């Protein structure tokens, strides 16, 4: 009896103790992916689950793969927007990830479904909105019966994966020598749900009030590009797109200065983990 009471009292004494559960925990040893890789993996993941392979490629490219093979011959005005840095005769830092379209088609017969993320470079100064080095994801689907509706479908799915279930995608006519028809790709601005104003009635600073954000370029692969890569444009059609990762990650994390990504401030890396 006595022993039982003592045991009972001991239990009660244990239960009577209370600690301060709000006392800060010691910091865990936590690692993280860079926000650009996170966005890149989320985008690639969407395509991987739908049967696309992910290919990486070189950052030093030939002029042929960067321009001529993409239906941009020398002196073509479209080269103007692709101001490049050269590292040797006919060799440059790729100004877009589009050369991977050529590499992928040369190495594999159709049907072909690939996304190719990576760095690209343009001869540009670094400021809040520009960086000479940036990341893109290029997507390419070539097979019989592929049309532009499939492009819109996949880009809509990607945007929903990246920004949320209510995203829609808008195409606007544009010009890229390696696609025809060509389209600029916009998606609903997640900063204001497409309304152009934020909840505080201020103009949305993410989209500048338009309700849309620009993601990149896209279109049906030009028959010349298919032919040059050894595909027969009478038997297959395909689409390609290229979107900027920095822009997407900036919108997702509400970042207004692209340099944040390349400073690697440990406080910020922890914040965005």
């Amino acid at each position, binding site marked *: 009896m006595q022993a039982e009471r003592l045991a009972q009292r001991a239990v009660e004494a244990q239960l009577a103790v209370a600690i301060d559960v709000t006392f800060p925990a010691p910091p865990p*040893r936590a*690692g*993280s*992916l*860079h926000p650009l890789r996170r966005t890149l993996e989320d985008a*690639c993941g969407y395509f991987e689950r*739908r*049967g696309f*392979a*992910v*290919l*990486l490629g070189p*950052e*030093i490219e030939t002029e042929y793969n960067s321009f001529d093979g993409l239906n941009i011959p020398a*002196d073509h*005005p*479209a080269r103007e927007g692709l101001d490049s*840095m*050269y*590292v*040797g005769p006919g060799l440059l*830092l790729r100004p877009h990830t589009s050369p991977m379209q050529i590499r992928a088609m040369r190495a594999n017969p159709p*049907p*072909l*479904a*690939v996304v190719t993320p990576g*760095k690209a470079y343009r*001869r540009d*100064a670094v400021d809040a909105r520009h960086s*000479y*080095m940036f990341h893109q994801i290029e997507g390419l*689907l070539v*097979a019989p019966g592929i*049309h*532009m*509706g*499939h492009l*819109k*479908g*996949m880009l809509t*799915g990607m945007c929903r994966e990246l920004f949320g279930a209510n995203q*829609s995608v808008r*195409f*606007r*006519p*544009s*010009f890229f*020598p390696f696609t*025809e*028809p060509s*389209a600029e790709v916009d998606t609903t601005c997640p900063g204001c749900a497409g309304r152009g104003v934020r909840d505080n009635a201020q103009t949305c600073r993410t989209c500048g009030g338009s309700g849309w954000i620009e993601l990149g370029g896209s279109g*049906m692969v*030009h028959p010349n590009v298919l032919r040059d890569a050894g595909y027969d444009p009478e038997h297959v*059609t395909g689409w390609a797109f290229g979107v900027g990762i920095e822009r997407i990650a900036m919108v997702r994390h509400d970042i207004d200065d692209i340099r944040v*990504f390349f400073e*690697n*401030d*440990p406080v910020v*890396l*922890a914040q965005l983990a």
Partner: protein
Amino acid sequence: MKLPIAWLRDYVDLALSTDEIAERLAVLGFPVEEIVRRPKLSGVKIGRLESVAKHPNADRLLVCQVDVGPGERLTIATGADNVAEGQIVPVATIGAELAGLSIGPRSMRGIASQGMLCSPDELGLEPGWFDDGILQLEQGLPVGADFVETFHLNDDVLDVEITSNRVDAMCVLGIARELAASLGLVLREPDSSIPAIDEALCDARVTIESPDCKRFVAQRFSGARVATAPFWMRVRLALAGQRPIDNLVDISNFVMLETAQPLHLYDFEKLAGGHLIARDAREGEVLRTLDGEERILDPRFLVIADEREPQGIAGLKGGVASEVSSQTRELLLESATFTGARIRRMSVALGLRTEASTRHEKGLPPALAVVAAARAAKLLHEQGARAGPAVATGEPLESRAPIGLGEADVRALLGVDVSAAAIERALQGLGFEVRRANEQAASGQQTSRSFAVTPPYWRGDVRIREDLVEEIARIVGYDTIPAEPPPVFPQHIASTAYDDERRTAQALLTLGYREAVNFSLQPASVAEVYASAGIAPRARPVEVRNPLSEDQRYLRFSLVPAMLAWAARYESAEALRLFEIGHVFEQGSEQPFETAMCAWMLVRPRPDEPPFRDSGFLEFKGDSLAVLRVVSGRDAQACSATHPELHPGKTASLLLDGVDAATIGAVDPRLIAAYGIRNAVYVALARMNDLPSYHMPRYTAPSKYPAIARDLALIVAPEIPAMDVEHAVRAGAEGVLAAVRVFDEYRGPQIEDGKKSVAVRVVLQRADRTLTDAEADTHVAAILESLRERVGAAIRR
């Protein structure tokens, strides 16, 4: 391109608001970068100054009687000094709203002024581009009419982006055509009819000596005098961003902005031989261009010369020698087409871009030259000039073959059905000629119509079926394209490199490493810091031939410098862990090449410990082995190694089944010092292409029987590595060894000079039965014997 909506209205009746027009243009592929909102003016009339007299009470004021329509006469005092009887001027009446001010009745030194004569800036016009003082209008305008409505002055201006393939849309008429097609409206072509051509006015000659001048339309004019252009033309030019100069210059600019065809007017009497020659410049030829620059030319440049010397650089800039002046009576008009690429190269070589060159370099259609000349002739005729016949020299005009297009092609590319009627309507609206080919039965009962489509001369960009489909899509609207999932196709392309990056990044993040992305370009100073620290970078760096700045001159040869700079910047009392996966570059003998690398780094304060021990290294080694374990499914072995960026005595290779998977070590102290880092820094480097493949780990049943652990204290020579001690233990305990681990090392008092003490834990266990103490003793004795034989170890007493 600045596009005044007022000007668009000359060709198409738009019933849309500014924002609706901007939206429609975006849908057509011409995004509006900026809407320049015009001040909303009202109450301004066209007036005629009936009389101008001195103000009775003020020397600097004038009092005008102004006719502003039948029976309406206003008394207006003004301080302007450019007014005179008979002038036609804009008059703001009482209640008028101007740019930034409202007009009310007011008394000026005792005279009740019933309005105001307007200056250009009060009307929202660029002040320096029009008359100083009161804006002067030409005679013949309807006195009393609403000034703002007459000239659509309240219409906004759109700044439109034109893609480089659409030179035909780099003009007001081109955009008007697009809007008309999209809205189903009628396009009013500008009037180019003149009553009579003076056939005798044909004393000019043109010779084309270069294939890069495709077509040259020349036309003589006589009798025009330099004057101020009519206000409707001046205001259109000004709103489009072009400063009005005089009637003749303005006409050539007006026609360029209207039709996209640049024109040039020469003072014909200054042209030697009355002869223009399109030819390559000769080495060293000099031309003073209209901007006052002296240009020294060479054969890269295409010039328009007379029989003596160049009179202009083709497509770029005219020359001063034959410039039209107030003395000019005889004119020669040039409307020419050049090879776009040649003009572009010339523009780059001169560092000169003009409104003309931005159009020429995109390749203007040769058939446009004569159309633009006719339009200029009409406008010059209105300025009193007699026109000679337009004479075209150069290649014959291309006659374009029709492009075949099937209804099914549209569906195949867009994924949406567009009816044959809608296809026809879309293309015809844009000026394409569409003929229906025979109807053919396609699959099933459906019939697919096909067409033969001939693009208009101005659409050189449309060459193939796919181009036509884009035109149709623009007019029916890209928003009709559905969003559909594509079919899934089997394919067998491996994502190896990407998967390797992912699992490496995943392993590092699990161990507490944060990922960084650093710039690939760096200044020369990075290699200089290495050199000054006595570190020879392994590779010759790759140099960018055309860097924008010195900071972007070299491609990085290693991931380490940026990580060290980061360590210096964010150094603290806490341990920091960072990794990066990226390419490094090196200049080979033939060409540059690149290697995908992964680097990870630990930065931590140095503990107080003897020099033979580096606990930071061991911690980092533990992390690194764990990374390789996750990546490969196997345990790596460390062995001593060297690397140029690492401490020669604190570097190891991590081997997986004998293959080098990573190099790890403490960073060379000279580099640490060069970067001003106080903490200890450890770095691992792995080539992504050599990353070990993953081996699925195999199962071994754990023993059910108890294990016996023994700690051995040994004395060995200091150069004996722990790995050798462990090997010796293994060799002596075949079949019963569950684990062996060297867990301490000591040098100093109590240990004889030239020796070190190591402590080893040995765990013995059998898989089939319980091991007795006596058996364990026997095994330990065998282990000690092996240790003595293999590494000369003695038991520490």
